[in-house]
């Protein structure tokens, strides 16, 4: 589903956000992306949904090199993805329903069907009673759940979530994670960026760790940190 080969992202000549990242995520897999703040988790997600372009390397999503994707094809690729942004990115002047049904509305899906789908996903995140509310009438946690509902309403093949439980209490966070697992069981590949190590431990899923823009590979790290034993060259005295 996702393949990265030697991907780097630089902001200006001196700031490396990501350095030589390579990994693969199989279709239907659920992975966590973790690391301290500023490690490059959000940057990596932004590269995956084409909000930014890598400075070096190649990214394949669904077998397509997204770096060479024609501009006109980008919206179509994005519609196969669901994205939960760290800052929610809800449209303030639209209601919860309109935020969730935006793409369906653009594509001309019947309003009744839009409502049915929106109600269904909002019920899954426990906000079906807030369909006509505006984002500024909701708490941070509720806005987060609306963002999640929007991400999953089109049943994407790939779900990218950037700190999706950052604004939620532990009980709700657990429920949202359960929802992600449920979506994953239905076949959606899920990539969740979080620094909640306790949750990662409880979920027991594959985890990629970023540190200062580099992918932390435990095996490679072990090899690099092992004592170097070299035989001294034998130099004959004469």
């Amino acid at each position, binding site marked *: 589903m996702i393949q990265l080969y030697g991907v780097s992202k630089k902001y200006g000549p001196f700031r490396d956000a990501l350095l030589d990242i390579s990994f693969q995520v199989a279709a239907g897999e659920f992975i966590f992306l973790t690391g301290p703040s500023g490690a490059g988790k959000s940057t990596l997600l932004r590269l995956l*949904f084409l*909000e930014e372009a890598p400075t070096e390397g190649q990214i394949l999503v669904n077998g397509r090199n997204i770096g060479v994707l024609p*501009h*006109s094809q980008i*919206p*179509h*690729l*994005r*519609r196969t*993805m669901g*994205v939960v*942004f760290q800052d929610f*990115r*809800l*449209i303030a*002047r639209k209601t919860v329903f309109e935020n969730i049904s*935006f*793409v369906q*509305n*653009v*594509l*001309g899906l019947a309003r009744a069907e839009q409502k049915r789908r929106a109600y269904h996903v909002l019920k899954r995140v426990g906000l079906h009673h807030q369909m006509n509310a505006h984002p500024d009438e909701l708490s941070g946690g509720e806005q987060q759940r609306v963002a999640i509902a*929007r991400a999953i309403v089109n049943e994407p093949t790939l779900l990218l979530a950037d700190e999706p439980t950052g604004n939620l209490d532990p009980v709700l966070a657990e429920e949202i994670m359960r929802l992600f697992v449920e979506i994953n069981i239905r076949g959606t590949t899920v990539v969740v960026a979080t620094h909640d190590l306790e949750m990662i431990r409880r979920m027991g899923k594959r985890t990629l760790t970023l540190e200062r823009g580099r992918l932390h590979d435990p095996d490679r790290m072990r090899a690099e940190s092992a004592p170097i034993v070299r035989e001294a060259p034998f130099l004959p005295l004469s």
Partner: protein
Amino acid sequence: MVRPRYIFAEAWSIARSSPRQTLAAITLVALALYVPGLLALLARNLGRLAASDAGDPPAVTVTLLPDADRRALAERVAKDPRVRLVRIVGSEAALDRFRRAYPDLGAALAELREAPFPPSLEISLRASAPRGTAQEIAGATRLWPGVESVEATEEFSRRFRDAVGLVRNAGLFIGAVLTAAAVLSVASAVRLALDLHRDEVGIMRLMGATEGAIRAPFWLYATVEGLIGGSIALGLLYGTYRLALWWLTRDPHPVLSVFWVGFLGLPAALLLPAFGAAAGLTGSLLSLGGGKSRRLTRIA
């Protein structure tokens, strides 16, 4: 394929989110089209005057003696290939013309027992007639029996036509300048609306909205803005026309009352909203770029 209802709803939402800018742009379009519209109306009426009895002053006016054979003299003049039209104006017709031009004098004229104006021949020349033809014909007819006096007015006629042409050209020039200003004002309004929706546009794009879905509401918004501006200009122009007509009916003017008689024809009138809509669309294209332009993509 983007749903039309979505485009209309978004365009309305854009207009509502920046009412002041929308109003300013509509006002500018209306004013920009009203001024050239007014000049077009003036040119049209002056042009009508130029083509009418009053407005197409004859190149030569031959005043006849009361007992002259008007028809014979007219036919004699008409034989000249440079002559386009010979109009016989009887004493009654001359009096009637005077009454229409000076209605205030109606009471005094009513007391007249006989027509005070002598009969005359009004000679109009072909456009191809060389300069000096009027003087030449005047010189010849002056010697004919039954002719009292002859006056060549060719120069006035030419100057009048030149003046009408000048008004028309000024209208076109001012119209072009003001239309360009209208286009730029719509472009500014669209740019402002876009700035207000910058975050949304970025979100829409990340959600998978196509460039067409993002731009189409802005195109529609600007086009309707221009259309409304053009329609207002048309309404203002018609209001001006009716007001002037009412004023001239109430207080007739010897010159204005004669030529201020008609509004723009339907096709010409509909050009104003059409120009407005075209100016709006052009403004939005200037501001956003076309479907394949990446100008808008910088904000994502």
